[in-house]
Structure formats: structure tokens, C-alpha cells
């Protein structure tokens, strides 16, 4: 028969009464991320050569790109942040960052950006390309909120 006066939890509960809480006062106190934390995918249009290696490797089909149209797009809500595309990229065009401004902070809705989390980039066609194919926002990112 267990001893009913053996109360091992009482001492700890009393200590907890006078100690600081284990939780944080979020959002006024935000826990900083660790150096190795994975985040969301960031894309650098200037270095990309639209080879499509990352698109082929993505397990969730979150990326799309077209060499002819100089176009690249990420579905951020589909992305599982595994980092396979970052490993696959030979040109260092893809990075992972916990403070990615492109996902949460974009406020301006742009033409073609119709879904939440959808980001797309268009690059101006190089000189001599067929007319009429480089009419999108040249060299800039467009993203939906």
C-alpha cells in the first residue's frame, strides 16, 4: 500500500509558486532563432540561369520555372522547407532565411499573383529575343500577400 503522506510533487509546486514562469510573454518577448534554423526559401533573380534543376528535385512541386520566358515561381505555402533546392542549385540563387521579407512582408498585390504565398519573378529578355515575350515586370519580384 502506498504511503498517502508521500507527496513528491508538493515541494516542486511550492518552488514553482515563487519561480519565474517557463513561458515567454509573446509577442513582446520573442525567442530569437538559432543560427542553424531553416526558414523559408529566398530567391535571387540576378544569378539564376533558369536551368530547372531545383524544379526537378522539389518533392512537393512547389517550384516552377521556364527558360524561354525567363520566369521563376515559388508556392511558399506548398514548400516544406526541406532545402533540397538549395543543395541542388549550382549558382547559389536559392537561400534559406528565417527573416525572409518576401513571404510575410509583401503587401502589394501584383498582376499574376493571385494566390496567397505565390511569388513569381520575371526577367527582361536579353537583347535580340522575340518581341512581345518580355512584357512582364522586368527584373523585379512580384508577390502576393
Amino acid at each position: 500500500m502506498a504511503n498517502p503522506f508521500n507527496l513528491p510533487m508538493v515541494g516542486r509546486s511550492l518552488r514553482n509558486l515563487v519561480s519565474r514562469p517557463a513561458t515567454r510573454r509573446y509577442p513582446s518577448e520573442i525567442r530569437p532563432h538559432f543560427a542553424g534554423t531553416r526558414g523559408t526559401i529566398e530567391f535571387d533573380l540576378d544569378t539564376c540561369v533558369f536551368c530547372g534543376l531545383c524544379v526537378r528535385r522539389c518533392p512537393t512541386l512547389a517550384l516552377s520555372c521556364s527558360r524561354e520566358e525567363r520566369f521563376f515561381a515559388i508556392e511558399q505555402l506548398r514548400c516544406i522547407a526541406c532545402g533540397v533546392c538549395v543543395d541542388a542549385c549550382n549558382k547559389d540563387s536559392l537561400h534559406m532565411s528565417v527573416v525572409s521579407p518576401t513571404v510575410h512582408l509583401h503587401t502589394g498585390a501584383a498582376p499574376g499573383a493571385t494566390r496567397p504565398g505565390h511569388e513569381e519573378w520575371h526577367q527582361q529578355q536579353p537583347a535580340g529575343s522575340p518581341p512581345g515575350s518580355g512584357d512582364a515586370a522586368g527584373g523585379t519580384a512580384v508577390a502576393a500577400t
Partner: protein
Amino acid sequence: MKRTVVPMGPQHPVLPEPLVLDLVLEDEKVVDAIPTIGYIHRGLEALVERIEFGEFGYVVERICGICSFMHGMGYAVAMEKIMAVEVPERASWLRLIWAEMSRIHSHLLWLGLGADAFGFENLFMHCWRTREEVLDIFEKTTGGRIIFSVNKIGGVRRDIEDSELAAIVAKLQELGAGFAETARIFETDPSIRHRLSGVGILSLEDAHAVDAVGPMARASGIAIDTRLTGTHFYDRLDFEPVLETAGDCLARVVVRVREITQSIELIRQAVERMPKGDGAPVEVKVRGNPTGETFERLEQPRGEVIYYIKANGTKNLERFRARTPTFANIPAMIKLVKGCDLADVPNIIMTIDPCISCTER
């Protein structure tokens, strides 16, 4: 006597996951229990036909949010076996360390849920507070808290520096010292003893008969643990499975409590015995497509998991199959539930540590 059928789940306050169980009652006694499997079937195994074998590891990890590292590791190890890839030694050691850390965080999570199920909410929060520190170590070393994406065929994607490893061991030992008090509460508190002792007894013979695995079997006195086979570098550690003989709910709690301390000790030994990091890569490049088939066994926190992989020389595997520990423990759970009081059903269900996401995939 008139029989009543009470559906327990898929939504029930005590269940962490949607287990579906129809209880047939005579008054307050359970005379039969009918489980249904498939409520959260997601078809992950069939995805193997559409996703290339290299990327499928990230899908396998998502079978379950608690055993995610072990699932990724099991898939990677099995594929390395088929493709005859020699993994760098340090990568295997790192996998062992992360696997044991997964066990610590899974058991802490379960102890919290178990405490919540038998009405000890204060203890639930203590366990989860401790678990949070393990998750922080995971985030520091792998980049994720729940889904780590650190395993790949041919090794692991991140190395841990030796100084960082020493800091992890120090942190875990400090955590273990703090956990000793919680462990004492689980083992000696009279209210827990009163609630769990003698409830849902699975005898040694019954455990053999229903093929129980993991802590469920070890609480009944069966020394069954795939770590005993010595694969995945466990033969280089001093390992003895934690055994209890009572076979009741309390014994299953105590086995898990002691396995946490044991895992911390295993990580300490692993860090001591693994080769020092010399900056060499912890992964090798894998070329070609796999051909052949293989089985792989691992000891997950909930018990033994078996992976079967059949490859046919193309980019997509022909078959991927996982037999998860909860599936093996469901017959034991049904056996225990029959004949018990309705009020004891939540405790019995919880002490098998049901992971329905794993089971139904």
C-alpha cells in the same frame, strides 16, 4: 445483460490522435472493443510511385511528427543497403545521437500526455517543459524542431562540431538531473500508483501471444529491442534494455521514464566513442538507380518498426511499406481493454503510446 456500444474516438478529449474504437459495454464493464483503422489514411506509401526515391525521404519523415527522424533514418539506411552505399562513420554516429534524442523527446511528450490522461495536469506541463529543451537542441543542430530533413541517402546533411556535441551532452545531463525529480514523482506518487498500479495487466505469456513490441513488451518482462541486434552502431555502446515485470500501466510508465535516462547515457557514450570531426563530409554522393529489395528494422520510441522497400532500377520505387509499432501493439491494447472498467480505458489506450498517424499513413 443489455449491451451498449460506446464509440471512443476519433474525437475524444483524452486521445492525442484519432483512434477509432467501438467499446461494447455491459454496465460499466467493457466486454469487447472493435478498432477501426484508416481514419487518417493519407496514401503516403502510394506516393512512392510518383516521387523520385531521393526525395521520397522527405515524405517518409512526414509519416509522423514525433518519430520523424527515425522514419527518415530507416528509409535512408534501407536505401543505402539496396544501393550498397558506404556511409561515413561519423554520419552513422550522428544518426544514432539524433535517434536517441528523438526517443527522449517522444517519451517526454508521451509522459506528459499520459499524466494528462490520468488527470495530473501539473506533471504534464513539467514533462513538456523539459521536452522543449530537447527540441531546442534539435533546432540548433538540424534546423527544424519537428521535421528535421537531415537524413539523406548517403549520410546526413549537417555535421555537429565536437565542441557543440560536448555542450549537448552537458545540456542533456543537466536536463537528466532535473528530470530525476519528475521521474521520482512518476514512480512514487501515491495518486499515480493508485490510478495505474494493477490496471491493464499484460502478462508475459499474453505479451508473447499478441506479439507486443517496444516498451509495451519490455514492461511485461520480454527483453525485445532491435537495439540489441547491434545494428546502427549500438553494438559499440553498453546497452541493456530497460525491463519491468509487472506488465501493468504503471510498469509501462516506469519503463519509459527509465529509457529517458538511458538514452542520455547512450548519447554520452556515443559522443565519447565516435571519431573526432576532421571537417570531412558526412555524406557521400549516390549515383544510379536502386535495384533489389530489402527489409530494415529500427527501434522507435514506440517499438520495432519495419520498412520494406522494393526497387526496380527506375527513379521510382516499386513498393515502400512500413509496419509501425502501434499497429503491432493494437492487438495487445484490445486484449487489455476487454474486461476492464470503462474508466480505465483511457489509461490503457494511452499506455500503449498510440501513434495513429504512423499506423494509418
